[in-house]
């Protein structure tokens, strides 16, 4: 049956709470095999849920990577001077990076809680962060920014330390202001490191799975469902290995494209 390969519309779950469960034991469906050519790939274009997941993934990737880079750069510059307890501060910055993604998703789910969450309490509002289609994806972005900015900070700090101190002094002697030093010296010299950060972060953000899967399960109304989550649900919850694999291949092709794009940028004379 070709139709078996397509996702069941009933799968559009509208509840907020993530429905996470182990892979079911029954597995007869895996043994059903019939060659159907590129039918699964053609179905992608008619599958609104795929297009929705693609859009969500792009939104999540672009917004979170941009914010992480800006915030990471600010923090790296802030920490790039000598002060007491610098080592301690660096360890504290590493905390979000070291915490398991699942744990951080549960932590943030509790922080975002509408009635008893600390966020609503501190802001003095009563927003249903994970239940509203507008806020849910942004809440996921915010959590990801918290979790992965430390990685960006570490790489950028390493990049900043390579810049010779004399350069700053020479620029200051020549009358350059802080902003000039930042845009004309720091940024150009940091460019290769920034590119490396962008490669790692874009690839990771594009294939995001556990963070959002545990936080929202893809809901509400699939507004936070990314490609990896959709693929996972089709593969292991509805056990449609054919179409699920098609979705997984799409993720693979996209990340492959992203890496090639960045590697070409890197090799195109942006080296030091």
């Amino acid at each position, binding site marked *: 049956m070709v139709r078996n390969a397509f996702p069941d519309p009933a799968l559009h779950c509208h509840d907020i709470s993530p429905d996470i469960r182990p892979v079911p034991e029954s597995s007869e469906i895996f043994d059903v095999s019939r060659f159907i050519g590129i039918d699964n790939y053609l179905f992608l274009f008619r599958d609104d849920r795929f297009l929705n997941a693609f859009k969500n993934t792009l939104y999540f990737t672009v917004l979170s990577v941009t914010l992480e880079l800006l915030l990471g750069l600010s923090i790296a510059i802030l920490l790039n001077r000598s002060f007491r307890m610098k080592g301690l501060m660096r360890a504290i910055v590493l905390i979000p990076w*070291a915490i398991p993604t*699942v744990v951080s998703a549960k932590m943030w789910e509790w922080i975002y809680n509408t009635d008893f969450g600390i966020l609503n309490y501190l802001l003095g509002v009563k927003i249903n962060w994970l239940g509203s289609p507008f806020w849910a994806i942004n809440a996921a972005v915010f959590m990801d920014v918290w979790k992965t900015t430390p990685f960006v900070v570490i790489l950028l700090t390493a990049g900043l330390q390579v810049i010779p101190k004399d350069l700053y002094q020479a620029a200051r002697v020549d009358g350059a202001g802080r902003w000039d030093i930042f845009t004309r010296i720091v940024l150009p010299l940091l460019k290769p490191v920034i590119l490396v950060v962008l490669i790692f972060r874009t690839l990771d953000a594009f294939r995001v799975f556990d963070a959002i899967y545990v936080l929202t399960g893809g809901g509400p109304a699939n507004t936070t469902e990314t490609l990896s989550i959709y693929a996972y649900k089709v593969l292991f919850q509805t056990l449609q290995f054919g179409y699920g694999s098609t979705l997984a291949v799409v993720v693979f092709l996209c990340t492959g494209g992203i890496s090639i794009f960045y590697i070409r940028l890197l090799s195109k004379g942006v080296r030091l």
Partner: protein
Amino acid sequence: MRRTIFYLLIILLALYCAGPLLWQFITSLKLDTELTKLPPILPKAPTMDNYIAIFKENPFLRIILNSAIVAASTTTLSLILGSLCAFGLAKLRIGYKGLILGFILSVSMFPPIATVSPLYLIIRALGLRDTLFALIITYTTFSLPLAIWVLTNFFREIPDEIYLAARVDGCTPLQVFYKIMLPLAAPGIFATAILVFIFSWNEFLFALTFTSTVASRTIPVGIALFPGLHEVPWGDIAAASVVVTIPLIILIFVFQKRIIEGLTAGSIRG
């Protein structure tokens, strides 16, 4: 004035990074009745009930033990295989080194979601479903590229003369490896070990897919599937989160320098 602003920013940053974990810790000390009241932020009478509950009513100890076995075995295997491979790539005369390294690195480019279903079929066919071994070989496969990459960079920094001198003095390449290279690259090996350990301690997708019972469940899956009868047991989840995060917090506070070295060696020096 400028100093004050600087330290104010530093404190803000510390709160931003550690705040959520701190809140989870405070939550873990509250009784269920206190969880649904805000303010007060701090519990009136801090309680250990949640911590006692997770160890009493759940197979939580089993889950922690599983994670420890998986992470420790993965780290050991990755270091043995990775250091040998990195030594060869950094010091021995073999052709197509760049190509080999590029090929190994390309493995880490694969998105997990694209590899999870074929791996699932293989693991099922081998009868390894719901075993710790399935997770150990999978994690070793996926952490090897990182391990080899970081270790190759560390081995390269050891001067070739040391290798050649030892060879002239009659060491076999393998002897040079374990008598001279390993001790010299100890910091790098240490950094790699921490990174691989944290990766295997935290991994979720493969663990969720390959395991079905507590016999082989690891911490991330255990926390995601935390049993709750009627309501989400936030106090218990908070206590469990704190318990599984403690080893990682100790790691980063003690080995902060090594971790940063490892991360930067893995992505920049090449």
